[in-house]
């Protein structure tokens, strides 16, 4: 066996990498577990009131499977339990000083492969032969497709992480990409029967991921705390709204407007940046906070008759390319956003590793030394503001097009806080961490919380606890942000996936002083 392949099965011993790699491993194995479990819970997940099918425990209760299906479904349940338990048990075991050896991984790998095969068999029985009585009754409102997709994906992911653990731990970024990208691409197909979920993926996840990627440039790379980031989002959205609606009777296509939104927002980014150049830390945060409040206020006051006042601008065009009509099919928004996000991620990653990216980090580490080493602190900071804002403006243009109506309320302080929470949760300064953070937080805030009301009502009927019904979970949004921030600061100050530098920095800490303070002009 060539060395390259042998190394695939050998544990990585590089320090530093190892801890991060283990985190990635844990995240991926948990994701696999969640997906496998989700296949079972999917009918609840997408529609609490459906009499769904698939592998739902509800169905097992309502109409227990019979015949050969019984064996299949119970074997499948065993594989599910093994894979769901693994990521929970492993950290506990490590706390007690024991570790799972290769044998445990091999058992899990077998469970994953068996589960995958069984899912294929069941899908074949259900969809192709339509052997309905095996798994309960199906109607038009069932979610078998999504359940099968998710479960198969979960099993495949489990097979990857348990079958090639050293490789996942060693090449974490690549493993993360391989694991996540197909899910991103196939998501609309998996959830084609759940348009709400697609709306979430395009309108919340992708938009907030772009916002977080942009803010990460300002806060993560250049170390400039910006609390008014929603302002640039608003600017992008209003730019799109103005040029693609009956309000001013201009109808430009979206793919021009995303560049226009980015350009206008970056201009504003530089304009905001200019007066804050001498500020750092708390002072900078307060000034940006003010800017974040001013922009929605200007929009409310219908400044220059451009923004439509408190009602905002409505009737924003839905893009159309040939036969693709975005308004009837959110999946095209989703795929466009996925493509744009990938391009943004690649470009930001390149910039991070280039001359400018180095200058940002130098500025963050020690502004005085950076200036004395030949870095123009003014242009470098403005560049960070402008690039960060341009990504936000891009997201704003898409947002305006998706929701087709923008109003000042959409760009309140809570948006800035949400974006900041995402990057703190995921890992400040680390693009992979920011992506992960946007998945987790938007899922909780914009999917779980709004649906929680229905779920708890259904659950209250199932288990007969009336108190569970009628709780308004969506009012708990801020508690989630607060909890996320507090828990992260206490337990993992670098975020779920800390950047390598941040990880070491946390052991020593200390903020550098500003150039202006040293010069005595601030």
């Amino acid at each position, binding site marked *: 066996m060539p060395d390259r392949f042998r190394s695939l099965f050998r544990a990585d011993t590089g320090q530093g990498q190892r801890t991060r790699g283990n985190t990635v491993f844990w995240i991926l194995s948990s994701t696999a577990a969640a997906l496998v479990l989700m296949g079972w819970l999917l009918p609840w997940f997408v529609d609490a009131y459906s009499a769904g099918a698939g592998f739902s425990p509800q169905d097992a209760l309502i109409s227990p499977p019979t015949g050969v299906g019984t064996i299949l479904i119970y074997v499948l349940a065993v594989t599910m339990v093994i894979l769901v338990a693994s990521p929970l048990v492993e950290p506990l075991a490590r706390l007690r000083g024991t570790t799972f050896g290769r044998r445990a991984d091999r058992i899990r790998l077998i469970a994953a492969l068996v589960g995958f095969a069984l899912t294929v068999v069941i899908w074949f029985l259900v969809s192709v032969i339509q052997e309905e009585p095996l798994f309960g009754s199906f109607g038009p409102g069932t979610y078998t497709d999504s359940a099968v997709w998710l479960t198969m994906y979960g099993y495949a992911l489990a097979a990857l992480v348990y079958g090639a653990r050293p490789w996942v731990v060693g090449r974490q970024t690549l493993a993360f990409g391989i694991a996540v990208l197909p899910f991103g691409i196939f998501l609309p197909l998996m959830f084609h029967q759940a348009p709400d979920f697609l709306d979430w993926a395009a309108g919340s996840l992708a938009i907030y991921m772009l916002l977080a990627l942009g803010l990460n440039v300002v806060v993560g790379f250049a170390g400039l705390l910006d609390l008014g980031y929603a302002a640039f989002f608003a600017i992008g959205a209003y730019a799109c709204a103005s040029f693609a609606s009956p309000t001013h009777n201009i109808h430009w296509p979206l793919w021009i407007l995303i560049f226009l939104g980015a350009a206008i927002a970056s201009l504003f980014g530089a304009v905001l940046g200019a007066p804050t150049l001498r500020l750092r830390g708390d002072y900078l945060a307060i000034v940006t906070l003010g800017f974040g409040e001013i922009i929605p206020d200007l929009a409310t006051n219908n400044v220059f008759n451009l923004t439509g006042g408190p009602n905002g601008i409505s009737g924003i065009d839905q893009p159309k390319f040939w036969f693709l009509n975005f308004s009837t099919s959110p999946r095209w928004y989703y795929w466009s956003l996925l493509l744009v996000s990938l391009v943004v991620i690649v*470009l930001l990653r*390149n*910039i991070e*590793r*280039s*001359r*400018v*990216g*180095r*200058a940002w*980090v*130098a500025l963050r*580490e*020690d502004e*005085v*030394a*950076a*200036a*004395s*080493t*030949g*870095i*123009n*602190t*003014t242009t470098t900071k403005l*560049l960070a503001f402008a*690039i960060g804002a341009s990504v936000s403006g891009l997201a704003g243009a898409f947002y305006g097009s998706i929701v087709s109506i923008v109003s000042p309320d959409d760009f309140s302080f809570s948006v800035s806080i949400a974006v900041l929470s995402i990057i703190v949760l995921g890992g400040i300064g680390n693009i992979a961490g920011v992506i992960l953070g946007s998945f987790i937080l938007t899922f909780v805030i914009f999917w779980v919380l709004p649906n929680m009301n229905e779920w708890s009502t259904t659950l209250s009927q199932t288990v007969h606890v009336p108190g569970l019904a009628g709780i308004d979970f969506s009012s708990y949004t801020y508690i989630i942000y607060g909890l996320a921030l507090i828990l992260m600061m206490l337990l993992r100050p670098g975020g779920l996936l800390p950047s390598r*530098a*941040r990880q*070491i*920095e946390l052991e*020593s800490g200390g903020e550098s002083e500003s*150039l202006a303070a*040293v*010069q*005595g*002009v601030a």
Partner: protein
Amino acid sequence: MALLELAHVSKRFGGLLAVSDVSFNLDRGEILSMIGPNGAGKTTAFNCVTGLFPITSGSITLDGEPISGLPPHRITKLGIARTFQNIRLFAFMTAVDNVMVGAHWWMKERVWDGAFRTGRARREERSVEQRALELLDLLGLSRYAGSYAREMPYGLQRRLEIARALATQPRLLLLDEPAAGLNTQEKKELMQLIARLRDEGLTILLIEHDMRLVMEVSHRIVVLDHGEKIAEGSPADVRTNPRVIEAYLGTGASNEMQSA
């Protein structure tokens, strides 16, 4: 003509006159040391030259061009590089990245080159990285190229600062107490390094408390006390200057001076 010229430079902080009417010239290829007791205004003078502090009065010229009032990065571009008394590295960048930051101002790569990784950007990145590695090698830091500055031993951090300063392609190098905290062996290596830089034509302005080092490498010495220049001359002159011995060294230490 002098490379660097300070004429009647003063720097006032509120009621404190940290540098008072100091004038001296620095010729090309020369090593000039600034000595004086703690608080004499040496580092303040450095900060004035490198643009960190705006001066209160007087003028500073580099090659006949006035540089007082310019921002620090412009002064770096004109050819003045420095190190700091309390090491100011980019602690969480690797050693090679620290040095590459020194190349920032003369690199031609623009933002879009970096974003799209154009051939030009990649070529330049490679060649700059190569030069950074050569600089690290020159200073005996190759082993630590991939380590974070913070993880390096103290003495090597001082050398990394010099490497970063050299990457800016300076004509004039300002070293602020480069020997502070170094052991005898490291000091010896530092002395060799300074001599080598001098041989390559670099002009050096040095602040240092280690008299053995100062006396050995300097062509001339400027002595500051309470912000004022109290003496200037060759090491031999300064060593025997009674005002210097009185103000700076004290009578007890003069013996050490004589034997140095």
